[in-house]
């Protein structure tokens, strides 16, 4: 599965894989039903490859395109929160009580200058504010205003190495007992709308929305927007991090690492 994370040779292989998948699927449907078919690793492998096609085509067509931005009049009256909505960790609870005055974000890994940034320091960096639509993988959407420093600026500040390929976000929360984490590649990390938001709709983030800091990666689905971010690590491979698939949902379920579609 980790193979899908690496941009590969391209369309021809993927499409062939897809067609082969169609043939496998056809046979499988006729013979034994789709659930049985899914258990066959070959079919799963082939179907999952379509993710390469999604990423490849959207990147080719989209380039640096910005996600649509809205006006304050478009804000949803209520912004639903789901998934991980709180942190039990006592250190976090104490910080929450103190308004995150002593809280720091660590930036490390393949960088020249590892950083420890307080919330105040993050607020002092150049800010970007954007009103965007949050698209949940489940199908619902909500519109909110987000503000924070651009992730790209932070990475430049830390001097991210040329060998780095992914940015991993480690979070303060456990979700169903497992540490939450997510990752994006450098194309998305340096996208102008990729920010570390500490403010939502003009107020500091609430706990359900990931206080004090959450990732906004606007051209991808909601599960990529890690909440409660405490540590950002630049890496060249995702293989040795938790389940190796690049994120909580990618490891636990079969959710796509590339969540642009």
């Amino acid at each position, binding site marked *: 599965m980790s193979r899908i994370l690496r941009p590969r040779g391209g369309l021809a292989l993927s499409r062939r894989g897809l067609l082969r998948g169609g043939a496998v699927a056809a046979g499988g449907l006729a013979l034994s039903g*789709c659930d049985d078919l*899914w258990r066959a690793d070959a079919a799963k492998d082939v*179907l999952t490859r379509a993710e390469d096609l999604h990423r490849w085509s959207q990147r080719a067509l989209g380039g640096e395109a910005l996600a649509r931005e809205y006006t304050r009049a478009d804000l*949803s009256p209520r912004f639903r929160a789901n998934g991980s909505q709180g942190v039990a960790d006592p250190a976090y609870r104490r910080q929450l009580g103190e308004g995150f005055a002593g809280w720091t974000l660590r930036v490390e890994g393949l960088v020249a200058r590892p950083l420890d940034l307080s919330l105040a320091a993050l607020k002092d960096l150049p800010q970007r504010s954007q009103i965007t639509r949050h698209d949940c993988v489940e199908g619902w959407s909500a519109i909110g205003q987000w503000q924070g420093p651009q992730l790209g600026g932070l990475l430049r500040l830390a001097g991210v190495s040329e060998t780095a390929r992914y940015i991993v976000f480690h979070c303060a929360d456990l979700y169903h007992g497992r540490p939450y984490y997510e990752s994006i590649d450098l194309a998305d990390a340096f996208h102008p709308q990729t920010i570390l938001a500490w403010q939502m709709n003009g107020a500091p983030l609430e706990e359900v929305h990931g206080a004090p800091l959450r990732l906004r990666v*606007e051209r991808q689905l909601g599960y990529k927007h890690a909440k409660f971010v405490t540590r950002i690590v630049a890496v060249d491979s995702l293989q040795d991090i938790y389940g190796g698939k690049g994120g909580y949902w990618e490891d636990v379920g079969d*959710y*796509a690492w590339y969540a642009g579609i």
Partner: protein
Amino acid sequence: MAGTEAQDSAQDGGRVILRHRLSTRLWHGVNALTLLVLLMSGLMIFNAHPRLYWGEYGANYDAPWFKVSSARIGAREFGFVQIANSRVETTGVLGLWEDQDGRLQRRAFPYWMTLPSRYSLALARIWHLAFAWVLALGLLGYLLWSLVNGHLRRDLHITRREWHPRSLWQDVKAHARLRFPKGEAARHYSVLQKLAYAGVLFILLPGMIATGLAMSPGTDAWAPLLTQAVGGRQTARSLHFLFAFGLVLFFGVHMAMVVLAGPLKHLRAIVTGRMQIEEDAS
């Protein structure tokens, strides 16, 4: 295609014609499977958030125009489908049903309609998005090929005479009386058939693809007109569902017509391409 290249080999008093070209047969077969996979995995995806809205946003606490859910009044629990403010009880089928192991489930669509049969949004998305490529590339290829080989112009083009209300009404009457064309006429699609097939080819299938893409945050960034044209992501999602319903409706009528017009004859035609047409009783 509707047999324009007659093969005059007399057989049991009827002529055998080439009814459907290889491109049509192939695409028909691939599509039958693809649409089934897309429909079943789509219903599973819908199960993740069984509500539909209009506009750009819509989530719990917002007002859906369509909802599949379950509720309890006193000790009685029931499943229902809600459109605007009216509810229809659907216990046992939608909203509240028993799974393979006899356990009560409170999801929108039951296991026998969905792919996979046990709840999994992630797997359903993998099936759905992989087969969406098959549908999109297949449709594109088929349309281009049909343009080149003349299928669109010859067989699906609706002439000005056919658009005439009298001609349309004639065809409606003929269908209502289950009078199917014989002889020369059987070699061409009737105007209602043309309308149905063109509607699927040029409205429903492209509409499915366009509204599907309009829901994708990545595509919405570089092709915002797709979503804006329909008035928002949730509208796109609603239309995606309605178009799917349209395709299911088409499938139902399509099957009914095949059964009424001679299932074996038409099954053979769509598999081998050849069909025997009856001569006019003249």
